[in-house]
């Protein structure tokens, strides 16, 4: 008898909390990616080279023709994408339903771009840049969240 009240209140609490936790995690991951991409963009624009310890691979990747689209560095596009993901995650966390869709599509686009960049590093340049791999890991995490989210939301409903 006593458990009837809490059981009706609990799902509502869980739902909003799960949603908040989910989008907060997504926003934090996007923020880390944004910081890294901003750093790489500033380096690129100033003509500075990003150093990867004693490894030469960073130069091979970041100095290659694949590192820019026209005059725009790929890291700049990455910064823009991370900022978009952060924005949509934040708004989705505050309950904006449309932002969830935008967040999903942004992450899908980032995931596709990441696959392409990993292919380029593995098969065209034969070199992996640590910064790029870190960014790829972040995007895989975001993708994992997006994939896991519908299940969580369905469960809540």
């Amino acid at each position, binding site marked *: 008898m006593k458990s009837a009240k809490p059981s009706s209140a609990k799902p509502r609490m869980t739902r909003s909390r799960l949603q908040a936790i989910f989008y907060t995690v997504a926003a934090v991951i996007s*923020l880390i990616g*944004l*910081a890294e991409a*901003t*750093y790489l*963009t*500033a*380096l*690129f*624009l*100033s*003509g*500075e*080279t990003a*150093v990867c310890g*004693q*490894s*030469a691979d960073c*130069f*091979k990747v*970041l*100095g*290659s*023709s694949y*590192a820019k689209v026209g005059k725009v560095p790929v890291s700049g596009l990455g*910064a823009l994408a991370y*900022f978009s993901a*952060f*924005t949509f995650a*934040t*708004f989705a*966390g*505050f309950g*904006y339903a449309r932002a969830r869709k935008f967040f999903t599509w942004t992450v899908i686009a980032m995931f596709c771009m990441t696959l392409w960049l990993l292919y380029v590093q593995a098969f065209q340049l034969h070199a992996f840049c640590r910064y790029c791999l870190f960014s790829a890991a972040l995007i895989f995490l975001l993708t994992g969240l997006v994939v896991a989210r519908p299940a969580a939301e369905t469960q809540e409903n």
Partner: protein
Amino acid sequence: MKRYLPFIIVGVVGLAAVGSGTFLYRTKLNANAPPKISKTEKEAGGQAVHALGPDNAAVTLEEFGDFQCPPCSRLSEPINELQKKYNLRVIYRNFPLANHKWAKDAAHAAEAAGRQGKFWQMHDLLYREQGVWSQSNDARALFEAYAGMLQLDLSRFRADMESPEIQRQVDVDQQRGAAIGVKTTPTIFLNNQALPANQLMPDEFPKAVEAAVKNAKPSS
């Protein structure tokens, strides 16, 4: 208030990203800024010479360097600082040593960058990253990557690296050095006086330059 919170968060993060990016860009730009007077001149024989600082500087520092030589790399930054501090005229000449596998290619890369007005940027980059490319199995690929980082025209850079003119330029520098007794690197002349090896240590070198500046400016 809660209604506006996401806008505030996104706005703050956006401003912070733009602000920190701009700050980092400016900091790096100042650190990598080419000297005020940096040019490639023509000497009497029609050869190009890479010089920093004013023509009428009190002290001219002429370096015969090898991009793969570690002591040259250690002196690179002090020379840049002293050039700015005392407004020296600095002349760089290539003297790639035969026992350094990639030294000649590095000299060609610097000269090829010079064709696009970025000799000194490539010079600094090659010295800064010496530890990386000198141990690489394919340093030329890295030189191309550096050219990419300096936003050079890559196809022109590649063509210039192979061009006979660039190779002749490096050979002429080397012959010039050999003719005046240069045998090792770095060999540095201050107002045409060769510095002894003990003054090429990073601790001693600034003192030698300071002394040369004092001698050049007789006290009034």
